[in-house]
């Protein structure tokens, strides 16, 4: 009954509420201490007993203590330390014979560690990269003491500038050294052969020659030196090598190695390259103009999440099919495959603590999680077919089981108008007073206008008069005479009884300095005392601001203040160039005393 109601109420809307959720909350442990990426999660029947385990390549809380964890149900079955951080985990069938228990491969640094029955079985190390022959030659010469370190250094510099093949770490380190240390370094390292090692960045599996569920698979490795390698599942030899223009980050493979396959590699330069069986070089290229954060293939559509919060669908020839905008940044993506209903969908863990499930463009389901989900995995776990495993940023583990009756229904038809359309417009109200004023204006508009015009003229007249007066008595703070363009402003500081009066004088002419100016203070001598009431101004260089400081002592204890007039004069002229009236503040120091 519950099932029926759930599917009914869910039709038409993708939101999942408590009652009608499609998921059973199987397990939530916020303290599970699992820190990993989707690529390091794998589900497999490791012991061949029909009980699927979860393999986690755990990076440790701060990337310090990498561990391989195997979980059965909610509990950790085994846990073993790893030599380096795991980049990817995969389970695959190595050979045909019974019992058909899958092997576990863990890529870490330059190695792939293969486990069988959870016991170390094989360690594959990436072959050394060929060193630069010139570089090799140089070090050989050093070995035979034919060149000195300085020459070596210069030669290596030359190689670094031009060569296609990068230098080895040894040479790079050597180039960093000081003169005094070179000898020691050379004598210590000259006997060693130079090495260039690369690391694995990503790994996936590719069926060898059969499309069956339980067919033998090859490992496909992406390396830091921009190559893709396909490994033989039994002998661990390199079957194929393909090169890419950039470092692969995510891989998505379909087909069989021996027949025909397509390989999509999302790379660090923001492009996705698509290769086919016979191509040593990428056949198609999708330029995203953003960094891909996940790559999932749903049937024939490549779904790419970009770090611009969008999900794109591409054909395997690189044609863009659709784009969906996400409400938040995508952190991780994985495939949801429900075999019973032959449904394939994309799960995307978002930064706002939601997991969105999309089928093409259509949002099927939203799962809200207590913490931000950083890795996702869907598949058979334990004995339950459709289990969703999520780990969170805080190291939590969430396990949800898809209800067997749950059917994902796409939200059909038009989305309808946005909810904002139903909101009322917030039109500002007008008051009674406003209406009255309007009516008054209608009645007496002419009179109002005339009054206004009269007042306006009067105002203009007064302003003009005041301006003329100011010009006549040089009361304005800016002098615009051709010879002495000056600007003056004054600042009074202090609480009293002593104030500091600072005059800022500026020559606003473009090129001409001004010489021979005088400053004079006019004040009530009963109220104020100034050390110098009259002094010369130094030469004013154009553009610079000259602060002229003087102290003013307030003599009155009655809390009276007065105006101090500042006059800027020119030697030999009686009319001031500029004048300023400074309203002195009341001396508060005296009042308090």
């Amino acid at each position, binding site marked *: 009954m519950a099932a029926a109601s759930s599917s009914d109420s869910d039709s038409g809307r993708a939101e999942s509420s408590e009652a009608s959720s499609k998921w059973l909350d199987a397990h939530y442990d916020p303290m599970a201490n699992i820190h990993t990426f989707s690529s390091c999660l794998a589900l497999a029947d490791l012991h061949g007993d029909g009980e699927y385990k979860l393999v986690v390549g755990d990076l440790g809380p701060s990337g310090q203590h990498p561990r391989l964890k195997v979980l059965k149900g909610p509990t950790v079955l085994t846990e073993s330390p790893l030599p380096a951080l795991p980049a990817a985990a995969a389970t695959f069938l190595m050979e045909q014979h019974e019992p058909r228990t899958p092997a576990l491969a863990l890529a870490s640094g330059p190695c792939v560690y293969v486990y069988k029955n959870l016991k170390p079985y094989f360690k594959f190390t990436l072959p050394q990269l060929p060193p630069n022959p010139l570089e090799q030659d140089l070090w050989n010469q050093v070995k035979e003491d034919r060149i000195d370190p300085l020459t070596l250094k210069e030669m290596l510099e030359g190689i670094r500038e031009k060569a296609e093949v990068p230098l080895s770490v040894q040479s790079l380190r050597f180039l960093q050294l000081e003169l005094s240390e070179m000898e020691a370094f050379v004598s*210590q390292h000259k006997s060693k052969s130079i090495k260039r090692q690369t690391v694995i960045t990503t790994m996936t599996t590719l069926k060898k020659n059969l499309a069956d569920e339980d067919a033998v698979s090859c490992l496909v490795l992406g390396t830091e030196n921009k190559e893709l390698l396909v490994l033989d599942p039994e002998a661990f030899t390199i079957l194929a090598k393909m090169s890419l223009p950039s470092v692969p980050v995510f891989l998505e493979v379909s087909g069989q190695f021996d027949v025909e396959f397509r390989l999509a590699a999302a790379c660090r330069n923001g492009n996705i390259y698509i290769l086919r069986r016979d191509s040593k070089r990428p056949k198609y290229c999708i330029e995203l103009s953003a960094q891909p954060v996940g790559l999932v293939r749903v049937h024939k559509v490549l779904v790419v999440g970009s770090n611009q919060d969008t999900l794109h669908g591409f054909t395997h020839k690189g044609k863009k099919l*659709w784009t969906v905008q996400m409400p938040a940044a995508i952190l991780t993506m994985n495939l949801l495959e429900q075999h019973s209903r032959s449904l394939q969908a994309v799960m995307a863990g978002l930064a706002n603590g939601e997991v969105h499930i999309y089928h093409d463009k259509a949002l099927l389901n939203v799962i809200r999680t207590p913490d931000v989900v950083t890795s996702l995995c869907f598949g058979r776990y334990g004995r339950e077919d459709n289990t969703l495993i999520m780990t969170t940023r805080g190291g939590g583990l969430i396990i949800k089981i898809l209800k067997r009756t749950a059917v994902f229904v796409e939200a059909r038809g038009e*989305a309808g108008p946005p909810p904002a*359309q139903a909101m009322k417009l*917030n039109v500002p109200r007008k008051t009674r007073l406003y209406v009255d004023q309007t009516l008054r204006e209608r009645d007496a508009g002419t009179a109002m206008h005339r009054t206004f015009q009269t007042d306006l003229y009067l105002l203009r007249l007064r302003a003009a008069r005041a301006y003329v007066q100011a010009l006549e008595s040089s009361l304005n703070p800016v002098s615009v005479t051709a010879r002495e363009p000056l600007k003056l402003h004054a600042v009074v500081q202090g609480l009293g009884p002593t104030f500091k009066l600072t005059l800022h004088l500026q020559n606003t002419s473009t090129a001409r300095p001004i010489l021979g100016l005088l400053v004079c203070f006019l004040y009530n001598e009963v109220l104020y005392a100034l050390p110098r009431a009259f002094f010369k101004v130094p030469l004013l260089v154009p553009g610079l601001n000259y602060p002229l400081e003087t102290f003013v002592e307030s003599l009155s204890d009655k809390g009276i203040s007065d105006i101090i007039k500042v006059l800027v004069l020119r030697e030999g002229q009686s009319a001031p160039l500029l004048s300023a009236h400074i309203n002195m503040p009341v001396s508060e120091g005296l009042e308090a005393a």
Partner: protein
Amino acid sequence: MYDILVISSMKNLMCYCSRIVVTCEHNAKGENLIMTPLSVKICSPAQEFPILEKQNWLIHLHYIRKDYEACKAVIKEQLQETQGLCEYAIYVQALIFRLEGNIQESLELFQTCAVLSPQCADNLKQVARSLFLLGKHKAAIEVYNEAAKLNQKDWEICHNLGVCYIYLKQFDKAHDQLHNALHLNRHDLTYIMLGKIHLLQGDLDKAIEIYKKAVEFSPENTELLTTLGLLYLQLGIYQKAFEHLGNALTYDPTNYKAILAAGSMMQTHGDFDVALTKYRVVACAVPESPPLWNNIGMCFFGKKKYVAAISCLKRANYLAPFDWKILYNLGLVHLTMQQYASAFHFVSAAINLQPKMGELFMLLAAAVPSFFVAVALTNLEDPENARRAYAEAARLDRCNPLVNLNYAVLLYNQGERKGALAQFQEMEKKVRLLKDSPSLEFDAEMVEMAQKLGAALQVGEALVWTKPVKDTKSKHRSASASKAASLQQPLGSNQALGQAMSSAAAYRKLPSGAGGTAQPIKPPSLPLEPEPATGAQPTEAPAQIRETQE
């Protein structure tokens, strides 16, 4: 340690070493881990060099997930281990710096990367990008050119070069580079930039061509759709404009620009209620948009809810006090409300604010408010100023006979027969000109008024021009509106277009409101009128207001 190293002979290395110190400072935060004497390490006999790229994948994963704190921690660790040799770690550190706004630091780090691997175009690209963000477009172009030598088939380099050239106003080069970019790989962004160039050059048709191609390439990009719609709107191709704006709204029903543009089109057609419902969405998203409140105000005006209209327009005016269109609309509404004093203030403010550019649209727009001022002043019984305003309107206007007619009436009422006659003749001239364009039709009231005035002024040939006018009268009205629209089109940039449309709507919406309410104005506004004008007087005001929309 590194400071001494700087003595080394090679120039590049010098740069590189000093940069590494920077890196250390940023990443080791003074823990001096990188600064530990190398000799100690060298002394340990069984020293294996770490793999430089060991944790690049982890750095990258943290970076793309925007988990910058974790990313920085890994970078720091990696740089300590490799003594600053890990190029990718420095690269991502620089990217993060740039995202955090420390462009100068990021530039320095990118330069370090470029030294570490001089053959990598990517590093140069990022150096150029940082330079670009710092506003050093010329330097950016140089570096991009360097990068282009290393990688010739990179659309990004071409695109960014194009953008740099746009900023340097070298449109031809920009054009070439952007076309190169499109040739290599098609991206929406390149189309947008290319369209922008054409718009900057004022070539609407080419811009439309580009946007059309862009929409073909990515049909769901709402920005492209909206821009194309607005361009069509600007050209007066309403059908296509509406189609594209509608498409944009299907993909993104909350697209602010598209709603505003579509709403103003609805307003033009009188669908005020629909437009208002659409505006609600915008009001939620961008509640402080002046054009939005202006348009809402004009919707209410169209619905004859004048108080609400004034409220909304005043809010728009509060949000954008220097927008002359809003002031103009406010004046219009107040005029309708017979609040002539307020109307006068708003319209004169609009005239004062409006830029006086020599373009046709500007002239037209300048004439209309002047004309309004005159109308307001006439009603305010301020004949002196009214005359001046009319004179100004008549000076600015080129094709509107009503300005002259009204001026003539005013002058006649003032007792200046001569001046009235001159204006009347001016009006006839304009009418003769307009007569040739068959789509235009004259208002009945205007014709009647003109005849009366002609009789009063004893101008004999008045009949000569009224007859053909009467013939054209049968033509449908909408044509005149479209003419006005086409006159008002060439206005500025995309952003301004929404506003422009709204005011265009406003101009045209005038009659429905003004025609009705302006009737009761008739009171004897001009006291000195001689007998012949008395009959004409009542119709004068409506005629005046109605004219403006044509």
